[in-house]
């Protein structure tokens, strides 16, 4: 009888550890919403969107002149202003779910998810 109780205890413990690990792994995945701001091929800034507490705007100069204003807010990031001719980067809106990068071609600026992908692996657009 005692042996049985010990075994039940062990199984319960292993199950608890499994559950804890699962929660830990999945929570860790969801937390990985980190993005990189890349200018002319170089990472100029890395931002963990989940740790942003207030809206902040950064001025990112372009290699050939001009600039983009990048706004970071809790859980999301966007190009809020740019002096490039097409303004496609501004129109791309907020990047929050980490599927597609925000790109400003004329200024060689890319804002992309860092590390592993969350949710989908890529975005058709």
């Amino acid at each position, binding site marked *: 009888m005692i042996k049985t109780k010990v075994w039940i205890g*062990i199984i319960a*413990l*292993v199950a608890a*550890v*499994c559950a804890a*690990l699962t929660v830990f*792994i999945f929570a860790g995945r969801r937390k990985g919403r980190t993005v990189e701001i*890349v200018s002319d091929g170089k990472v100029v800034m890395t931002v963990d969107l989940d740790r942003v507490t207030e809206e902040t705007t950064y001025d990112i100069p372009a290699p050939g002149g001009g600039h983009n204003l990048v706004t970071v807010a809790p859980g999301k990031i966007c190009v809020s202003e740019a002096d*490039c*001719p*097409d*303004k*496609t980067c501004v*129109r*791309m*809106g*907020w990047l*929050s*779910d980490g*599927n*597609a*990068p925000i*790109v400003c*071609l004329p200024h*060689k600026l*890319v804002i*992309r998810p860092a590390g592993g992908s969350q*949710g*989908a*692996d*890529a*975005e*058709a*657009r």
Partner: protein
Amino acid sequence: MKKLIPAVLLLALVLTSCSSLRAEKTADFFAMDTYMSVKYYGGPDGESEKLETAAAELEKKLSVTKEDSEIARLNRDGRAKLSGETEKLLTGALDLCRETEGALDVTVYPAVRAWGFTTGEHRVPDKDEIDGIVGKIGYGNVTVGGGEAALPDGYMVDLGAVAKGYLGDKLAEILKEDGVTSALLDLGGNIRAVGEKPDGSPWRIAVRDPAGDGVIGTLPLRDETAATSGGYERYFVDEDGEIRWHIIDPATGYPAKAGLISVTVIGKDGLRCDGLSTALFVMGREKSVSFWRERRDFEMILVTDDGKILISPGLSGMFEPEKGSSYSVEVIGND
């Protein structure tokens, strides 16, 4: 208790070790006026450079804006010698123009230029100007063969509507020849999958919401292309408040407004998927559905301007609409 410790350690080891079996490699570069991002597993050293070089070489042949490209010379001189690859691509594109009865037209470029989409200096051309331009649009007047191509005076060719799709297949071939069995290529939103994910599950592709910041849903992709056309990235609002996007109806010279705001085509042939996404956008809902019914050799997702998502039957159960989305999803019937 002594028995428990090794058991827990073993469990922890099993749970943490699987994810790091094969390292992900990436290649990120600018080509063809867009940002390209490739992730792949395995393959020899220097593979990323090889992909970037292949993209740059294709751009050098096809670019409408690089003065010494084959297409730029064809547009400038009305006649040009073509490499085997450009000839193959132009021939394939013209076949698709014929198949779509001109909904895709590789000679629509003068109209795209007149609206300012090539420079970003947007404008609304007046009716006389448009009429003049429409007279210089017509894929049927392009002749190609024997290593050269010719155009009537004032015509211009642009292969932009099919080039990324073609490039996806080309880069996928390079990867496969080098032993890569798992890769995902994002060529400016044109997605090409090689095999499946290293864990054996299909790649999951989200489709951009044409009317908002998020996505409309996701679908699995294996060894195929998903190409999307929409009016939401390159557009401007004119003086009357009307949205003018870059997809021009070759028949009218005006931005195509046929009730669709986004079209995604999924299939084996990248060039065809890419070109069809534009063609169906121009055709609109009814024509797209009958076009699909006559062929059934591709899958499609149409987003209408009245909030519906129409999917072909092959995507039923595959396409997962985004939770909380306001779109209603309908499967196209077989009748």
